[in-house]
C-alpha cells in the first residue's frame, strides 16, 4: 500500500541551547523561557504546552532573569545590564533600558505588577516603575557591597529579600534601607574558603525567607529575627534555583546535579496545626545543571543546561491518571528548522548563525521492508551560509527546485540564488532585497519558485517576486480583513499557486487568493494553537493541525470544512492520537495518493489515509506490526486511517521527495548528550 525508500538523515547537528531562566504566569497559563543563546520562547500551557511564540537569540544578549508584570507583559534582564520588554505580538524586543548598575543578575516584579526590582552587579537594587508602554527608573535601594544574585518580594510588597555572596539582606522598600543582614554559613562540606553564593531566594508571606546557595543547601530564615529556622542539604554541589507555589505550601529546588527536589509544608502530625517544611520528592530528569525552576499550580517546571524543559505534574493535584498527569519533556522546538527542496533532493538546515545545504545520497538498488540499501552516492554537504552580525536566524526556506535560499534575522531578510551544477555549487546573494520594516517570522517559496512569502507582523504576509537570474521584485503585502495584531508564524501555499494560507499568533487562519491578491476567506476560529498548515496539491484542501492534536481539513474553494473533516469531528479522533506528547510540526502530501496526508511529530510519522475507516478507541492505534503479520486479505479488515511509524525518533522533519522517496531527519538524543559538557560528577551505585 505504501512502500518508500527512506533517506534516514542524522547529520543535522542541531544543538538546542541550555535553558537559563523561566517565568511562569499563572494568570495567562504561559511559561516564558530564556535560553543561554538569548532566545526566548513562550509555552502556552492551555494549548497543550505548545511553544506558541519564539524570539530568536542574539549573540550579545544573555537573559538572566525573566518576569511577567502588569498583566501579560514580559520583561527580561541580563548580564548586558539592560532591562528589556518583549513584544510578544511582534516577536521581538520592544525596547531596552540600561539599568546603570552593571550586569543584572536578578529581577522580580512586585506582587501588584507595577514595579520591577532589579539586582545588579554593583550591589544595588533598583526599582523601576512599569508604565503603560515603558518602564521608568524610580529609585535605588541602599547600595550594599557584593553583587545581588537573587531577590524576592514579600507578597505584601513592602520588603525585598536579597541574596548576595555569603549573605542575605532584607530591604524595606519604603525607606530603601537594609533592615536585616543574615550571614549564610559557607561550609556544609568542603572548603570553608569557598564563598557561598545565594543563588536564589524566596520571601514567603509569613516572613520566612527561603534561600538556596552554592553550597547545596536550602535554608529557611526568620526575616524578623534574622535567625536560621531550618537547613536542608540537598546537593553536594549547588542548589541553583527555587520557586514557591502560589499557596506557599510547596517549593521546588533545582540543583547542579540535575536533580529537582520538592519541599512541602506538611503538618507535623495528622490534624496538627503546626506544620513543617519537609523534603518530599526528588526528581532526576536532567543530566546537567537545573538553572531554572517554576512552580505552577499543578506541576513542577524545570529547565536545565541539557536544554530540556521538564514539566512534572504533581500527582496529588491531578485527578486520575489522565493525559495531564503525564511527564512532559521538551527538547526540540515546535518549529520547523529543516526545509526540503523536493525536486532537487536538497535539505536546508537552520542553525542559530548559519545554514547548511546538503544533497541527499542515492542508491541504485531496491529492497523490501526493513532492508538497508547500499548507498551508491553519499550525501554531500554543498554549502554553508553564515549569517553576519550578532542576530540569530529566525527562519529560513529553500525553494522546491533548490535554486533559492531565503533566511531572515530579526532585522534583515536575505535572499540567495543557488546554482548546483554537476557537483559545483555557486551561490549569489540577491542584491537590493527590499528592507522589511519588521522581522520575518516565517518564509515560504511558492511551488513554482517564482515568489517568496514572508510572514510578518499584524497578520500581514509580504509577497516578493523572485526573478531570474537572481533578482527580486518589489514587495507586495497581503493583509487580513480582521486586522489582527499578532504576527503570522505559519504559511502554506497551494501547488497551483492560487492560494496562500497564513496562521497567526491569535490562531486565526486566513486564506488569500494569490490570483486576485486579496483575502479569500478565514477558517472558522478554533480555540487552540495551529501547529502546522498545508494545502493539498490536488484538491486544494487546507489541512490544519492544532496543538490539541485535532486535524481539520478545510476546502478552500468551498470555504468550508470537508465531509471527511466533519466525519472526523463526529467520530472523534483515537485516544492514542489525542494523547500524543508533541504537536504535529509538518504536513505533506503524496501526489500519487491523493487520499494520503503525511504528518509527523517528534516521535512518529503518520500517513493518514482518508479512504480508510477511522479507528475507535477499542482498536489499537499502532497496528503496523500486527498488520504486517496478517495476510493481504485480512489486512483490509483491520486497517484503519492512521498508519503510524515509530521507527524513526526523535524526528525533526519528514518530507516526501518528488520521486516518491521519504526524507526523515532524526536527531538522536544521545548525539546531543555527547555534545554537552560533562555533568557534575556523581557517585552512581555500582560504579
Amino acid at each position, binding site marked *: *500500500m*505504501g*512502500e*518508500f*525508500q*527512506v*533517506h*534516514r*538523515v*542524522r*547529520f543535522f547537528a542541531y544543538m538546542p541551547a541550555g535553558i537559563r531562566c523561566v517565568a511562569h504566569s499563572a494568570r495567562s497559563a504561559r511559561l516564558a523561557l530564556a535560553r543561554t543563546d538569548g532566545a526566548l520562547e513562550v509555552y502556552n500551557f492551555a494549548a497543550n504546552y505548545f511553544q506558541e511564540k519564539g524570539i530568536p537569540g542574539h549573540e550579545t544578549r544573555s537573559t538572566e532573569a525573566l518576569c511577567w508584570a502588569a498583566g501579560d507583559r514580559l520583561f527580561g534582564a541580563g548580564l548586558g545590564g539592560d532591562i528589556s520588554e518583549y513584544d510578544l505580538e511582534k516577536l521581538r524586543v520592544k525596547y531596552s533600558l540600561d539599568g546603570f548598575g552593571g550586569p543584572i543578575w536578578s529581577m522580580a516584579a512586585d506582587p501588584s505588577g507595577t514595579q520591577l526590582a532589579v539586582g545588579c552587579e554593583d550591589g544595588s537594587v533598583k526599582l523601576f516603575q512599569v508604565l503603560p508602554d515603558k518602564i521608568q527608573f524610580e529609585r535605588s535601594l541602599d547600595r550594599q557591597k557584593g553583587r545581588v544574585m537573587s531577590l524576592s518580594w514579600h507578597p505584601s510588597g513592602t520588603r525585598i529579600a536579597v541574596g548576595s555572596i555569603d549573605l542575605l539582606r532584607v530591604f524595606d522598600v519604603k525607606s530603601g534601607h537594609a533592615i536585616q543582614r543574615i550571614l549564610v554559613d559557607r561550609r556544609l562540606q568542603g572548603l570553608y574558603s569557598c564563598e557561598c553564593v545565594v543563588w536564589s531566594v524566596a520571601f514567603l508571606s509569613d516572613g520566612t525567607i527561603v534561600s538556596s546557595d552554592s553550597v547545596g543547601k536550602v535554608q529557611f530564615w526568620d526575616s524578623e529575627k534574622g535567625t536560621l529556622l531550618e537547613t536542608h542539604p540537598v546537593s553536594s554541589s549547588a542548589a541553583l534555583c527555587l520557586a514557591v507555589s502560589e499557596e506557599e505550601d510547596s517549593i521546588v529546588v533545582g540543583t547542579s546535579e540535575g536533580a529537582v527536589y520538592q519541599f512541602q509544608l506538611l503538618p507535623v502530625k495528622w490534624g496538627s496545626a503546626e506544620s513543617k517544611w519537609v523534603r518530599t520528592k526528588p526528581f532526576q530528569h536532567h543530566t546537567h545543571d537545573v538553572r531554572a525552576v517554576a512552580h505552577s499550580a499543578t506541576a513542577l517546571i524545570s529547565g536545565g543546561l541539557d536544554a530540556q524543559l521538564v514539566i512534572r505534574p504533581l500527582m496529588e493535584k491531578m485527578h486520575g491518571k489522565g493525559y495531564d498527569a503525564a511527564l512532559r519533556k521538551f527538547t526540540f522546538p515546535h518549529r520547523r528548522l529543516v526545509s526540503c527542496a523536493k525536486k532537487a533532493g536538497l535539505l536546508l538546515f537552520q542553525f542559530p548563525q548559519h545554514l547548511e545545504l546538503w544533497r541527499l*545520497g*542515492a*542508491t541504485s538498488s*531496491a*529492497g*523490501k*521492508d*526493513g*532492508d*538497508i*540499501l547500499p*548507498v551508491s552516492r*553519499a*550525501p554531500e554537504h554543498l554549502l554553508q551560509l553564515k549569517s553576519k552580525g550578532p542576530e540569530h536566524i529566525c527562519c529560513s526556506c529553500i525553494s522546491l527546485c533548490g535554486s533559492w535560499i531565503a533566511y531572515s534575522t530579526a532585522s534583515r531578510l536575505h535572499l540567495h540564488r543557488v546554482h548546483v551544477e554537476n557537483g559545483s555549487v555557486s551561490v549569489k546573494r540577491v542584491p537590493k532585497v527590499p528592507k522589511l520594516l519588521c522581522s520575518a517570522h516565517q518564509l515560504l517559496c511558492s511551488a513554482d519558485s517564482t515568489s517568496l512569502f514572508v510572514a510578518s507582523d499584524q497578520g500581514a504576509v509580504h509577497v516578493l517576486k523572485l526573478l531570474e537570474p537572481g533578482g527580486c521584485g518589489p514587495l507586495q503585502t497581503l493583509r487580513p480583513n480582521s486586522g489582527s495584531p499578532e504576527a503570522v508564524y505559519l504559511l502554506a501555499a497551494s501547488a497551483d499557486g492560487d492560494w496562500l494560507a497564513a496562521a497567526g499568533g491569535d490562531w486565526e487562519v486566513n486564506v488569500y487568493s494569490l490570483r486576485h491578491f486579496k483575502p479569500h476567506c478565514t477558517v472558522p476560529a478554533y480555540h487552540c494553537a495551529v501547529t502546522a498548515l498545508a494545502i493539498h496539491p490536488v484538491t486544494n484542501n487546507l489541512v490544519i493541525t492544532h496543538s490539541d492534536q485535532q486535524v481539520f481539513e478545510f476546502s478552500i474553494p468551498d470555504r468550508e470544512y470537508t465531509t471527511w473533516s466533519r466525519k472526523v469531528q463526529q467520530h472523534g479522533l483515537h485516544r492514542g492520537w489525542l494523547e500524543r506528547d508533541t504537536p504535529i510540526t509538518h504536513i505533506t502530501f503524496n501526489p500519487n495518493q491523493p487520499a494520503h496526508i503525511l504528518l509527523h511529530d517528534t516521535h512518529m510519522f503518520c*500517513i493518514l489515509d482518508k479512504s480508510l475507516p477511522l479507528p475507535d478507541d477499542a482498536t489499537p492505534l499502532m497496528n*503496523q506490526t500486527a*498488520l*504486517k503479520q496478517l495476510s493481504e486479505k485480512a*489486512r483490509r479488515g483491520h*486497517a484503519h486511517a492512521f*498508519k503510524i*511509524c515509530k*521507527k524513526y525518533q526523535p524526528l525533526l522533519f519528514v518530507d516526501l521527495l518528488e520521486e516518491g*522517496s*521519504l526524507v526523515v531527519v532524526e536527531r538522536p538524543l544521545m548525539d546531543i548528550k555527547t555534545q554537552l559538557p560533562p555533568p557534575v560528577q556523581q557517585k552512581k551505585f555500582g560504579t
Partner: protein
Amino acid sequence: MAALCEEFTLCGLIASAGAGAGQGILGLEPGPDPDRVLLTDRGRTATLYKVSDQKPLGCWSVKQDQTITCPAVCNFETGEYIAVHDDKVLRIWKDEDVNLDKVFRATLTADVYRIHSVPHTEPLVLFKGGAVRTLDALLAAPQQEIENVISDEVIRWSEAFMETQQPVLIFTTEKNGNYFVYVQKVNPNILHKYKLEQEESFHPLSFTAYTKNKILTLLCLYSNGCVYKLLMSLQQRVPEEEQILSKSLLLKMVVSDTVLKGASLAILDKDHVAVLGCLDSPPNIAKECLSIWNTKFQTLQTSKELPQGTSGQLWCYGEKFFLTHGKVLTVIVYKCETSSLATAVGKLKDTQTSGMRTVSSYVNWNTLQEEDLASPHAQQSVAAKTESKRTVSFRDVFPLLSLQELRQFLSNAQMSDFQATVGYIITGLVNRCKTEPTFYPRHCLVQLIQTQGLSYSLCPDLMAVALDKTDVHLLQLCLQQFPDVPEAVTCACLKSFLSISDDSLQGTNVNLDSVISFIDITPNDQVEKQTETVQNGFSSALMEEDSCDIQLTQKPHVVDTEELCPVGPQKAALLNAILHSAYSETFLLPHLKDLSAQQVILFLRYLQFLYIKCSEKVSTDFPGMLSPTINQIMDWMCLLLDAHFTVVVMLPEAKGLLFSLHKFVRAQVRFCSELNKIEGSLQELQRIKHQKDFGLYSIEMLELV
C-alpha cells in the same frame, strides 16, 4: 636478631638562644645511674632527665650572657656534675644546687674541648689544644699552663675508656682534609699519634671506638656509606713516630652513587652497629633513617625512617638510642642479640628466651664434621659429605644444615648450579636410603623438595623410596611439585593412597589446603548441612523427580551418603594431589587397571562427592590453587569408568553409585541445555540491539500497510 622496640619522646627541644633545633643539642651524657641522662643544649641549660619516667629531675642554667660550651657530665665517683661555660670556666655542682652561679667555679687558662667522665676513675678534661688532664689535677692548680699538643688541627671527636684500670682517651683531629688519631693514656702519660689513610673523595663522618684485649678498635663511618675498622694496640709503651693507620672495610651499607650525609655511628655490640644518617641519592628524596647492621653477616637487621629529620646526632646508652627527631628528643629502645648464622637467616626459633639463648643454638660445625653422630643432622651432613666430591662447590655447602642456609649460600651461584647441587644432594640421600633401610631423613627431603627446583627426572628413585616408606606427605609434595611424574608412579601413589586406612593417616602432616574448601576438617563434622543454600541448579529433589521407584523413606539416607565425604580429609588431600598431577590418558589407562574393585568404588565415590560439591557452587570451582577443578574431576571419573567399566557394572555395591551419578549427570545436562537456550535468546537480543547503529546516513526501505 636486633630490633627496634618502643619509641618515646623524652622531651621537646626548644630552639634555644642562637641555635635552632636543627643543630641538635650540645651533648647527652649518662647520668649518675643508668636511667638518667644529662642533656646539655646549645644555650645555657643542662637538664637531668629520668628516662623511664620521661621527666626532668633537675635543670641548671648559666647566666644570661654565658654559654655552656662543653656538655655537662656526671662524675660517677662523687655524683657531682661538671660543665664548662665560655670555654674556660669550669663549674661543678651537686643535685641539690639550684643556682649555677653560686656553685664551685674554676677559671682555666685554656679552652676546654670536652670533659670525659668514665666510671671508676677521675674525669678527664680534653683541651682544644689536645692536652689532657685529670680533673683533680686540674682543680689542684686551675691556672697551670696547658700545653698545645696539636698545632693547628681541630678536634673532631673524642672518647674515653678504661682499659686495664687505666683511663685511655682517644680523639681525632682534622687538618686540611687529613685526619689524625691520638690515643692518650693518662697514667703514665703516653700519647700516640696516628694518621688516617687519606681518601680522595670521601671523608669520615663519624667515629666510634671500643677496646678489647688491649686493642683499641676505631670504627669510622665514611660519607660513601662504608664503615671501616682501624686497629690500634694499646700495649705500646713508648710513643713512636706518627704511624699511618690502615683501614679495613667492615660494612658497606649503600650502593654506589649515594652519599651519606649528617650521619653518626654507634656500636651496639661486637657484631652490631647503628647508623643514623641521611642517604642522598640524587633521583630519590633524601631519607633519614636509623638502621642497625650486623657487621658479621653484612646484613641490615632493622631500620626506621625518621621523616621529620634529625640533627645527625646519635647517642646510645643502656640499650636505648637517643636522637633528635624533628623538634623532640626521641628515645628508641632496641634489642640486640648476639648474632649467629642461625639468627641471621632467621632459623633460630626462640628469640624470646633469656640471655642463654645465643649460646645454646649455636652449632659448631667444625666438631660435627669430624664425628659421625647418630642425630639426623649429623647423618645428613655425612650423607652430604659422601656426595660432595661430585661438585666443586659442594664442599662449601655441606656443613650447612638447613635448606635456607643452603639457599643463602647458593644465592650467589647460578640457578643451574643450584638445581644440580640440590639434585646431587637428594640423589645421594636417596641412594643411601636404598642401601640403609633405617636411614630416612624425611624432614630434609621435604625441605629439599620445597625448593621447587626439583623434578622427577632429577631424582627418579625418590618417589619409589617414599612409596616404600609410605611417606604420604612426601608423596603429596612430589605430586604437587614435580611436573613430570610418570603415569605408572601416579597410579602407584593412587593405589597406595586408596589402600591406607583413614585412621593411619590421622597423624600425618598432610597439607590440607586443597580440601578445606569442601570438607569440614574440624573433628565434629556432624554439622547440619541440610540448610546449605543450593545453587547452580543443583537440587537433590531434581534428581529424584523422575524416579518414583525410590521410596521416600530412603531419601534422607541417599542425601547423607552424597553429602558426606567418603574419605577422611587427609586422604582427600592426597587424592586431590593425584587429580592435580599431569598425565596422558593412553599411558594412564593400563596402570589404572591395577586398582582393585574396592579401591575403584572408593575413588569413584570420592569423585562423585567432589563433582556434586563442585556443582553446588556458581563458579563450579573450588577456591584455592591446589583444589581440583571440575574438568579434572570429570576426566578422572571418565578414565576410571573406562578402565573398570566391566568390573563396576558387575559389582552390586557400585550399582547405586552409578545410578545416582547417572541421574545427577542427566540433571546437569538438562540444566546446561536450558542454559544454552537462554544463551541463544540473549545472543539474539544482543544482535537486535547491535542493529541500532546506522551511522549518520542510510537509505532504508519502509513499508506501511
